[in-house]
């Protein structure tokens, strides 16, 4: 039997075993869960090679699965992050109930993502897409918080996207009578003009939902923050990348054939940029770390979308690089929040402060991730952003550069808020007994954070597979000149000019960090955060006076007009309008049997009167 089948069977069987083992014992369940994910990872990377395919027939449709370099690149993200998150989850989820359900959904969502990446035909792509939707939905509603709001928002928008995609798929199927994705791409130039425009629009709708692009992002803050953090790292790090994966295919293989493809590309590049800016602004305004990271994810995905949409080889390379990197640092950050949540029971900046000494390892992991996120050298984020800027400038998108630059500068604000709010500042009596999270949680975080460090220094590790992936998409092989595409790299993919500078910066930074910490250890006078002067005003008892309250008030006041109405407001208005309409429409059934009988007669008479036009 083909290895591709075996991977899927292992995942599905493992998921079921985990689910049922929950009834028997917790240890058995954890073992099955870990074994499944490890076996999958090992099997996938050792036994499945790029170019393997299988095909079979189901319900009269020819389905084909296989692996190409592009899919492999993304599976790296999925399985890498998935494995780390799995280890993390074992410890994070300990003691919660319904664990069989959680692990089952976790594994199924990993399965569905692998399925998406290995689908070579539209139907299995759609099937796995939907499986991904409901398996992640199951986890979003796992905690039971706000299920009717956030859960329904998520499934609703996902369904909107998925059905847009389904429409496109059936249109393609009716047109070319085959479901193969490559066949669709090959015959795309021969489609009618209307279809040529609509197919990418419909596909992109589906992918933008998952990639949380404005204005289809409204599900993301709620869903990201409601899912257990062990999964949110995968959710934001890997699952949203499926949207990027699809977008890349659509942009490369469809939109570039359109005569007026620039319009598409510009629009999406700008949508990405707007997503990045607004996401950043909203992230700054959050007091809840989960929400902050959720908005930050939206913003980061915005950069990636811009890169994909611009679509020059450097831009694409930067998008792919950022996609992987985002998985690393956002995975770390969500895990860190999870650790804090587990240890302190809250994730509000306004409640927790000064954890740096209580949870040093978490702090270090977060620090690295934050630096990567903010795009400060020497970590990987810098490389990706640099490439993005460079590609935008090279392709003459100057205003876009400014927008992106604004967004990533503003991102410093929430990065700082995250670090400062949780780890720095004064220690509170309330959190005196907080301990570092268990090793099983800290290690995955550190590994991922170390990943960003490694990639910052040796980006070639990731650039090589990214280059192979881009070749399968039809970009010219850049093997020879890839590393000189950006002024940043030498032939080995290492940073040339900046490496000494980078080390210098890092060294200084660490030095001052140590000095300050040691110094602060001795000299700081500890008072309660509530014990601050308030300029003559007597604070009320219930007022929270932590410094994290209204952290960036002046800034937010400045950008206030942009953020007055959230997008979700319009969705809500639309939704309640529709519900009112529905409520009104059901009044047709007014409960009187006689009226129903009159309806019958009305129906009959209408047909009788129009019988000649109905039955020609």
């Amino acid at each position, binding site marked *: 039997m083909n290895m591709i089948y075996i991977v899927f069977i292992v995942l599905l069987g493992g998921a079921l075993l985990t689910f049922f083992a929950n009834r028997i014992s917790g240890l058995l369940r954890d073992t099955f869960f870990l074994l499944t994910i490890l076996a999958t990872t090992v099997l996938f990377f050792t036994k499945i090679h790029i170019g393997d395919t299988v095909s079979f027939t189901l319900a009269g449709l020819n389905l084909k699965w296989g692996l190409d370099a592009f899919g492999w690149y993304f599976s790296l993200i999925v399985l890498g992050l998935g494995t780390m998150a799995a280890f993390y989850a074992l410890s994070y989820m300990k003691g919660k109930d319904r664990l069989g359900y959680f692990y089952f959904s976790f594994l199924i969502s990993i399965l569905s993502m692998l399925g998406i990446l290995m689908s070579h035909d539209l139907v299995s792509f759609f099937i796995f897409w939907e499986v991904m939707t409901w398996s992640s939905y199951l986890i979003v509603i796992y905690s039971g918080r706000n299920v009717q709001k956030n859960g329904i928002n998520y499934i609703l928008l996902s369904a909107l996207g998925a059905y847009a995609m389904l429409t496109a798929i059936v249109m393609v199927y009716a047109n070319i009578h085959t479901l193969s994705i490559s066949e669709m791409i090959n015959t795309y130039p021969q489609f009618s003009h209307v279809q040529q425009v609509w197919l990418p629009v419909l596909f992109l709708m589906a992918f933008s939902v998952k990639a949380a692009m404005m204005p289809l992002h409204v599900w993301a803050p709620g869903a990201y923050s409601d899912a257990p953090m062990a999964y949110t790292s995968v959710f934001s790090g890997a699952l949203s990348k499926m949207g990027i994966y699809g977008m890349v295919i659509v942009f490369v293989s469809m939109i570039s054939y359109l005569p007026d493809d620039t319009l598409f590309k510009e629009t999406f590049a700008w949508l990405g940029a707007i997503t990045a800016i607004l996401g950043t602004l909203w992230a700054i305004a959050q007091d809840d770390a989960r929400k902050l990271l959720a908005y930050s994810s939206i913003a980061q995905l915005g950069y990636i979308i811009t890169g994909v949409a611009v679509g020059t080889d450097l831009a694409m390379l930067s998008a792919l690089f950022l996609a992987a990197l985002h998985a690393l640092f956002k995975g770390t950050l969500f895990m860190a929040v999870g650790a804090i949540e587990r240890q302190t029971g809250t994730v509000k900046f306004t409640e927790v402060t000064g954890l740096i000494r209580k949870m040093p390892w978490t702090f270090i992991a977060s620090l690295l991730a934050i630096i990567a996120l903010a795009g400060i050298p020497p970590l990987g984020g810098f490389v990706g952003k640099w490439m993005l800027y460079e590609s935008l400038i090279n392709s003459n998108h100057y205003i876009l550069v400014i927008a992106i630059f604004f967004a990533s500068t503003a991102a410093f604000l929430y990065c700082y808020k995250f670090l400062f709010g949780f780890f720095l500042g004064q220690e509170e009596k309330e959190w005196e007994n907080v301990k570092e999270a268990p090793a099983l949680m800290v290690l995955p975080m550190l590994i991922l954070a170390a990943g960003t460090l490694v990639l910052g220094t040796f980006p070639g590790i990731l650039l090589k597979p990214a280059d192979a992936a881009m070749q399968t998409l039809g970009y010219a092989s850049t093997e020879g000149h890839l590393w000189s595409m950006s002024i940043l790299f030498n032939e080995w993919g290492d940073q040339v000019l900046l490496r000494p500078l980078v080390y210098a910066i890092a060294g200084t930074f660490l030095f001052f960090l140590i000095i300050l910490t040691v110094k602060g250890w001795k000299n700081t006078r500890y008072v309660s955060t509530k014990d601050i002067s308030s300029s003559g005003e007597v604070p009320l008892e219930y007022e929270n006076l932590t410094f994290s309250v209204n952290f960036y008030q002046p800034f937010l006041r400045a950008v206030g007009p942009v953020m007055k109405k959230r997008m979700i407001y319009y969705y809500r208005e639309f939704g309640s309008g529709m519900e009112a309409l529905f409520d009104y429409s059901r009044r047709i059934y007014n409960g009187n049997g006689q009226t129903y009988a*009159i309806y019958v007669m009305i129906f009959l008479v209408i047909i009788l009167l129009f019988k000649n036009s109905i039955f020609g």
Partner: protein
Amino acid sequence: MEFKLFDLSIVEYAFFITAVLIILIGLYGALVKKTLIKIVIGLSVLDAGINLLLISVGYVKSGTAPIFSPALIKDMPLTLENIKKLSEGMVDPVPQALVLTAIVIGFGVTAVALSLVIRLYRHHHTLNIDEIKNLKW
């Protein structure tokens, strides 16, 4: 066209007109009357109208009942030709058979309807259909 008080064609179609009128009366009763019993009566009238229509479709002018009674056969030998000749003067038996079935079915439905009316009265203490609408929307 000359007006005749008893236009022959109208007389010929009197069965149809009457049947349709009965149907309409029944429908009116079922659709407008408020009392449950009257609605049921309306439905029964409706049935009667349809049965009349059905039977008049099978009518053959000056035909006899489709029964080969001794009085009809007399002493004729029962050959196929004779039977055919006799049968030409008979009305169509099929609608009659159908009507028999339709009547019985109508009867069954009426019985169920009346028992439902009893139940409704027991439950709501009223026979006004406008007051019996707990189930709606």
